[in-house]
């Protein structure tokens, strides 16, 4: 296996040093060292910073079922280019990831692709129908070792089903990730309900539809003593509720997406369905609130909610278009611009919300395939090298994801992912994906035995 010595890099954007990646581990960190005849590829990283490999708790890889939008292979390749070393594949596939068989298949295809570790998310309810618990235990005990369960795309709105799920997953330290959307308040809803929806005549999606579910769920989690994870928090009110819940000691964690950190419902004025997403883009006040929440720790993680769609599902009138936007390849630059350049967060904070905490929530932060570990000697060599002074002009059509529904198409974003290492193997070098020469010989996805 190739060894890499990364010269003069700034871990977490801090003091510069050299990093040696050997045998899948971070072998050395320190002042410039010589290799004593050891064979290694040298990388001049004097303009780069290093972060632990990113972990995305919220990716739609679309396979099985919608391979016209994305495949596990194409989506994980896009993830590697975005600096990720692990992604969680949401359960709303066809068939739904609600049995051990389906989740094992997804994990296996992800492992064979080898771009990142692929962890399937298990559905909470059979067929995402919100009626009957899926076989959560079987998925947990399967080779995929599922720990995160979600009906994402749909809300577990039945309070009894939600309670049962929260209780049941305690048996294997799982977590229910809720897509908070009160269905009756959002029938036919198209965009955030407010000034813009009133003007342009698209059916409104009130903030309260999200907030009421979050409020209920944190109280349920408190009552049954479970952890609950709130996906894609989008409103100021949601941040307040999570903050309040944490102050009471409730085991709630929360996620925000890059697009909710950066875009507002003003985008809908164009009627360009690229900006149609669930939950909808909100107001500037909400954007400010989720940024503040992420900075102060109320919101724990950034998840991409990478949601690829084929062209025909977006090249139409707004109401007919699909919800969702891609995000794997733009997530780090968006967090860079909205949180770091704005002075709200340090690079160490970025590592916390995009690597360390997501891995911990999903309980993949220990063992030989651990993710989200610090950049330290002896840790798995999951590393992303990032050029904070570079820029990239987003071209949705040439991105690695099969779909072109990036809301940032044409934007010039700060920063550039230069290299990604998955347990010491380069998946991306010089911004170019590195196909594995020999498959099946390298380390496999966490937990698959």
């Amino acid at each position, binding site marked *: 296996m190739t060894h890499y010595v990364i010269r003069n890099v700034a871990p977490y954007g801090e003091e510069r040093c050299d990093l040696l990646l050997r045998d899948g581990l971070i072998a050395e960190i320190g002042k410039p060292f010589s290799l004593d005849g050891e064979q290694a590829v040298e990388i001049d990283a004097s303009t780069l910073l290093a972060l632990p490999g990113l972990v995305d708790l919220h990716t739609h890889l679309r396979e099985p079922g919608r391979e016209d939008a994305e495949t596990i292979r194409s989506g994980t390749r896009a993830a590697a280019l975005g600096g990720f070393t692990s992604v969680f594949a949401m359960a709303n596939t066809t068939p739904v990831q609600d049995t051990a068989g389906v989740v094992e298949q997804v994990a296996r295809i992800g492992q064979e692709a080898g771009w990142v570790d692929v962890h399937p998310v298990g559905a909470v309810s059979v067929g995402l129908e919100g009626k009957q618990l899926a076989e959560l235990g079987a998925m947990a005990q399967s080779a995929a070792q599922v720990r995160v369960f979600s009906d994402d795309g749909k809300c577990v709105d039945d309070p009894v089903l939600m309670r049962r799920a929260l209780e049941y997953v305690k048996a294997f330290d799982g977590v229910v990730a809720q897509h908070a959307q009160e269905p*009756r308040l959002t*029938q*036919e809803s*198209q965009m955030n*309900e*407010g*000034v*813009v*929806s*009133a*003007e*342009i*005549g*698209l*059916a*409104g999606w*009130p903030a309260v539809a999200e907030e009421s579910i979050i409020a209920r769920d944190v109280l349920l989690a408190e009552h049954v003593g479970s952890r609950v994870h709130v996906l894609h928090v989008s409103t100021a009110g949601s941040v307040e509720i999570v903050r309040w819940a944490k102050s009471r000691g409730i085991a709630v964690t929360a996620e925000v997406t890059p697009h909710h950190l950066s875009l507002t419902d003003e985008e809908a004025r*164009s*009627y360009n369905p690229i900006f149609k997403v669930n939950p909808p883009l909100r107001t500037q006040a909400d954007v400010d609130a989720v940024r503040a929440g992420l900075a102060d720790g109320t919101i724990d993680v950034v998840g991409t909610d990478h949601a690829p769609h084929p062209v*025909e599902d977006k*090249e*139409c*009138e*707004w*109401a*007919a278009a699909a919800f969702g936007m891609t995000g794997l390849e733009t997530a780090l630059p968006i967090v860079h611009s909205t949180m770091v350049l704005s002075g709200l967060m340090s690079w160490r904070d970025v590592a916390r919300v995009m690597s360390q905490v997501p891995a911990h929530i999903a309980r993949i932060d220990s063992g030989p395939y651990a993710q989200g570990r610090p950049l330290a000697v002896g840790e798995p060599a999951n590393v992303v090298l990032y050029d904070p002074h570079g820029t990239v002009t987003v071209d949705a059509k040439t991105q690695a994801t099969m779909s072109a529904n990036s809301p940032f198409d044409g934007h010039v974003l700060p920063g550039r992912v230069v290299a990604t290492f998955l347990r010491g193997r380069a998946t991306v070098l010089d911004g170019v994906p590195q196909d594995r020469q020999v498959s099946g010989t390298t380390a496999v996805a966490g937990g698959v035995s």
Partner: protein
Amino acid sequence: MKHLLSTRDLSLEQAVTILDTTARMAATQEREMKKLPTLRGRTVVNLFFEDSTRTRISFETAAKRLSADVINFSAKGSSVSKGESLKDTALTLKAMGADAVVVRHHASGAANFLAQPGLVDVPVINAGDGTHQHPTQALLDAFTIRRHLADPLNPACGGPLPPFDSGLGTDLAGRRIAIVGDVLHSRVARSNVALLATLGAQVTLVAPPTLVPVGVETWPCEVSYDFTRTLRTWQPDAVMMLRVQRERMSASGGGFFPSPAEYSRQYGLDAQRLGLLPDHAIVLHPGPMNRGLEISAQAADSDRSVIVEQVGNGVAVRMAVLYLLLASDQVAGSSSTLS
């Protein structure tokens, strides 16, 4: 001059130009020979994804009176998820050599979608998109209001109709207009609020709170929940009744009002409320009316009612818009462009 998608895109000057052109067009329609050669050789496509016989016929008549060829493309029944996409329909129309597309669609923003560069690439006229806009309806309403209210000394009700060019060149500064009914779902209300404000009129929306959109506070108008009080104390110069769909009270999306009878009692224009209007005030309705629900027969058939006249003015306003968008291939300066 490119498209007519929303009344929000119109400047005061452009709006007055359309109303003045409407007056000229209306005058030609009084003649024995109603047909003008102006758009000979041009093809107007009526692309209707929603049933609306009146609006389609109005546009068709307008185009034919200007000697344009008309192709009616009724796409009703082709569902959004199945069948031909709006994009493919647009490309088909382009290939057929349409010179303008009049579009009615159930989705808000459908006209904006067609107007994006690279699709039909000819003027797009919005004939109603979802709950967004219906600009020609607002223009014909404004034309009707201007014609009747231009001379405040002229008690328009009951006497002969004022001439079409009554108020020519003027806006609606200071006029008070009440728009009553289901504002939430109404493209007519959205179009009218924007246009009437541009023309300098004062607008009050009157509706039960359930039928007023969240976010209305930024609109250039007042909101009232009390129809009788608004009539009594505000003394509007014109009252525009909106159609209320009976199915809105069904529970599928949550009933917006308890019963038709209650709606009618609180927000219907009946003989008693009609009596509260100042002498010169007029009553408008975009049609089709629900007699006995939002408007009583006495109100609909009273001297104040200009509802039938609105239909005729609809043809003239559509002739004006077609003329201003199609007659010249040149995009003029801002003074005469529509958007």
